[in-house]
């Protein structure tokens, strides 16, 4: 039998080293998106939008055309691109500070218009880049640099569940929440990302995959403890699953 490759670095990524902290699961998600673009033969038609936050330099990591967007505005930038180039693949890569807070308006209206774009929404319940401040997705009781005594519901409300919210919008085609805390869930995450990009190729409309991710440095724990913390604390509040699949609901045509 000849030698065979089981796993190697995808051509969908550049050779640049990720700038993320050790154990940060952004790197896993980058790799999955890049692998999907290659496997669906979309890489050369893809235009990605890097947002503001830890993933701002995603434009150096994805091996396709990239544009960097202002904080929260990636869905608007993606709209502008897609309306000019409807046959290209357009995706945004946004964190929870970017998408769920300052960019809450842009993502809601992009979904509402059913823009034929794919949003990769990385939810790690904190602002990572700026030093671990409270995000709209920070859990009740979670300590951050701006909720040093733990997030209080009475002062800040409950954490926003973005997938549940966007699933109520008629224009949203496909919304799924997944996680990357262990290999089985990494495999599921890749399937979800693939489905989203497939739907975009079929011009089905707005797709978003919310991916629960760790920020061990921001959370103040080791990378391995962060995986456990995600599973034990985030998943109960942010249940995994498909929140909307209009293509499946309406029957594939």
């Amino acid at each position: 039998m000849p030698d065979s490759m089981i796993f190697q670095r995808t051509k969908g990524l550049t050779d640049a080293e990720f700038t993320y902290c050790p154990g940060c699961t952004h790197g896993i998600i980058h790799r999955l998106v890049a692998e999907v673009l290659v496997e669906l033969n979309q890489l050369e038609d893809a235009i990605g939008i890097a947002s503001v936050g830890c993933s701002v330099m995603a434009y150096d990591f994805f091996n396709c055309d990239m544009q960097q967007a202002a904080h929260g505005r990636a869905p608007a930038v993606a709209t502008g691109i897609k309306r000019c180039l409807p046959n290209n693949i357009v995706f945004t890569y946004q964190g929870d500070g970017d998408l769920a807070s300052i960019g809450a308006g842009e993502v809601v209206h992009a979904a509402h218009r059913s823009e034929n774009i794919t949003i990769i929404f990385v939810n790690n319940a904190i602002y990572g880049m700026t030093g671990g401040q409270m995000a709209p997705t920070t859990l009740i009781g979670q300590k951050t640099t701006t909720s040093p005594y733990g997030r209080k519901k009475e002062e800040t409300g409950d954490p926003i569940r973005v997938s549940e919210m966007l699933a109520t919008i008629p224009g949203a085609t496909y919304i799924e929440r997944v996680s990357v805390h262990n290999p089985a869930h990494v495999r599921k995450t890749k399937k979800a990302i693939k489905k989203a990009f497939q739907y975009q190729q079929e011009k089905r409309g707005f797709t978003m995959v919310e991916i629960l991710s760790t920020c061990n440095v921001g959370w103040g724990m080791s990378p391995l403890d962060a995986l456990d913390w995600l599973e034990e604390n985030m998943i109960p509040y942010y249940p995994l699953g498909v929140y909307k699949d209009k293509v499946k609901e309406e029957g594939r045509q």
Partner: protein
Amino acid sequence: MKNKLTFDVDRCKGCELCIRACPVNILALDEKRVNIKGYHPAYIMEPNKCIGCANCALMCPDVVIKVERVKSDD
């Protein structure tokens, strides 16, 4: 045939995600080495026991690990 892991050692940040992902517990940080970044890099302690599941590579956030099936040396 056997399974072969290759680590891009200088890209490893020593986060240990691969170590936990390994179902046969044959990965560890090499505490005798320090890579260019200043981390103890991950390595395979018992190469012959690798089952080629690629779980380590799936979890590695820095895409450090390559997994191949190659001819055995013996």
